[in-house]
């Protein structure tokens, strides 16, 4: 029984993203009961749910990185899209300059892009951990200049990545019914889960985010941990960039992963994580990311003007923030406490009435 309780407790952290998800599912089902239908197109699953899984691949990976950065450094990295643009540019550069494109080429290209991602992550990480610059400010630099760097690397022309393997990575491997990006994302999530299980990353990151002083006095170096989270973010950006560029088949410095940091931050917040750092839930962020993707597609399905989607999301974030704001929380608590008190008084009164009816006198002392 207590195991069930413990399980329920853990799920309660996920209340926010799950309830939003549930709401969206309901809305979609109202629109058309065939929401969950899945068909096979070109040998792969196709339908609303598979499309969501497909479309959110990059966002999920980025949200994982953002969760860690937020948890440890109490700030957000706004350069994740730009880092992805640069790393994918190096990937494309390598692949297009290779004599022939084999699986090995792609793999090496991928690894190179990850290294670039780590370097860029180190740039951000150094500014934040060593120079004590605030994360948003530090990452503002790459946000401003990143795409131009990517532009320089891919030579102004949107290079086209037209090889078989990229195609398979971006869409589907023949014979496998699930699209490749979904598989890649799942593998990534699995790796992250293993890392969390086999290292003390969670303990260290949470300690640093909650109380860096105490963490230090217990032997953890907050600077190193913060730096590490930015490195991880860099890798996440590289992986996301890799998936994005293979999906698109070409490298567009301007538009690849554009403004995705907004969705990533939103996913983290939606996942029940505090934007001020501390305890984190990767699962929450993952659900949050898929929820946002579902939100995007739901709005499209409801035939909302695509341009207006941005506004909707903006309003949604604002409402979310308002509900989560400390001031509102305090007000809500007051109201709830008041309600509890009134309820308790009612109960007490009811009891008194019973006493009166039985004994003929009130139990209360007359003042």
């Amino acid at each position, binding site marked *: 029984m207590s195991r069930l309780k413990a399980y329920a407790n853990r799920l309660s952290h996920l209340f926010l993203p799950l309830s939003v998800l549930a709401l969206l599912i309901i809305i979609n089902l109202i629109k058309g009961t065939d929401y969950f239908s899945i068909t096979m197109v070109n040998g792969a699953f196709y339908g609303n749910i598979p499309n969501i899984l497909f479309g959110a691949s990059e966002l999920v990976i980025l949200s994982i990185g953002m969760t860690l950065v937020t948890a440890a*450094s*109490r*700030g*957000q990295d706004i350069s994740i899209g730009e880092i992805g643009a640069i790393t994918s540019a190096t990937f494309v550069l390598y692949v297009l300059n290779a004599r022939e494109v084999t699986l090995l080429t792609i793999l090496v290209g991928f690894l190179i892009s990850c290294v670039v991602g780590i370097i860029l992550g180190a740039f951000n990480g150094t500014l*934040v*951990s060593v*120079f*004590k*610059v*605030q994360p*948003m*400010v530090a990452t*503002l*630099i*790459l*946000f*401003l*200049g*990143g*795409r*131009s*760097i990517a*532009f*320089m690397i891919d030579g*102004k022309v949107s290079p086209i990545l037209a090889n078989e393997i990229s195609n398979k990575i971006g869409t589907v491997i023949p014979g496998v019914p699930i699209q490749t990006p979904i598989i890649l994302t799942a593998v990534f999530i699995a790796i992250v889960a293993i890392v969390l299980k086999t290292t003390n990353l969670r303990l260290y990151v949470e300690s640093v985010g909650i109380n*860096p*002083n105490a963490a*230090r006095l217990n032997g953890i170096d*907050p*600077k190193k941990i*913060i730096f590490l989270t930015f490195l991880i973010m860099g890798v996440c950006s590289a992986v996301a960039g890799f998936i994005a560029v293979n999906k698109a088949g070409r490298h567009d410095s301007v538009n690849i992963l554009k403004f995705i940091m*907004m969705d990533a*931050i939103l996913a983290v*917040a939606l996942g029940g994580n505090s*934007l*001020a750092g501390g305890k984190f839930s990767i699962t929450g962020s993952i659900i949050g990311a898929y929820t946002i993707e579902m939100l995007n597609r739901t709005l499209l399905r409801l035939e909302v*003007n695509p*341009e*207006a*989607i*941005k*506004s*909707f*999301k*903006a*309003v949604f*974030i*604002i409402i979310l*923030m*308002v509900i989560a*704001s*400390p*001031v*509102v929380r305090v007000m809500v608590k007051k109201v709830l406490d008041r309600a509890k008190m009134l309820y308790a008084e009612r109960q007490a009164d009811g009891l008194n009435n019973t006493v009166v009816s039985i004994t003929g006198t009130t139990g209360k002392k007359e003042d």
Partner: protein
Amino acid sequence: MRTLNTTKRKTRLSNSNLLFMIAGIIFVLMYGFALISYPGSFMHFQTFFDLFNLNSALFIVTLGLCVVMISGGIDISVGAVCGLVTMACAMFLQSTMGSIWGALLLALGIGTAFGVLHGFLIAYLEIQPFIITLGGMFLAQGLLTTLHKNPINVTMPAFVALRNFTIEIPWLGTVNRLGFFIPCEIKPGVIVVVVLVILYAVLMKWSRFGRNVYAVGGNSESARLLGINVKRTMFFSYVISGLTAGISGFVFLMTTGAGNIGNGALFEMKAIASNVIGGILLNGGVGNLLGAPIGTLTLLTINELIRAAGVQSNLQAIVSGLLLYIFIVLQSIIMSLRGRRNFRFALPSWLKPHQLQDEKKIEN
């Protein structure tokens, strides 16, 4: 016990003024370098005036953002609001009831509405400014594309006349290839910039509100204990930022003549960079308002330099980023050299720093 200050101590330059002077010096150096390196492009007065003529909107946005930054906050919606206003005003002017005053009112209205929204949520509900104004930015962008996807050229005669209105400076000018003397031109947008600069400078230096903004930016907890209404001050700083963004939208329309969904893009980042270059610290409380236009000038000059040097325009963004980086590091070095022990600004929540050694609070 009375002692007289027999030796009048020479007061050290304030942080705000120091950073402002550095910004000014760097600008002069930068421009001087430009003059020497590319006299062909820069040796004309018109080039200087064109910096203002073509970028009036950016100057204006930077001013409004300056106020918010000094109060310790940030507003990244200003670019999007500017863009939204251009489209809304363009549509309004092209419609049957279009009028210039109406458009102006619309611009101010939209800007103020955003400012009030942000100000309320940030100051009174204590939500982080970054997220709220990011939401505002997306809201504005969304509204912009919803309103009208394609560019709208404003052909309304009164407006076109306003656009074309130029002030000529007869004694400054260049002789063109055909031998005609062409006097320097200043566009109406520049007038707006000058007026706003003067207005805001007076506001920040001489008004109670302006000084409260500095106080709140310096240490909001102290400001509260000193009797300042911190929430109200922060609220109005965002209203000002929004209002200014609205004005800039109108001026942008005057400059380019068309509403376009790309209008105002990246303005907020350029404005932040301009402010930082101009000596307005991101943590708040430090900065001279006149530094905002100087910083903008510097940023624009660098971009012009790059253009004159024949480098691709996309590098401009890298340069902005690099410049920002250099200035942030430079400023923090200067401030730490100047800084004394035990002195700290109270940092606003949106810029929660990574403090490893919180000062020890003695438990009583």
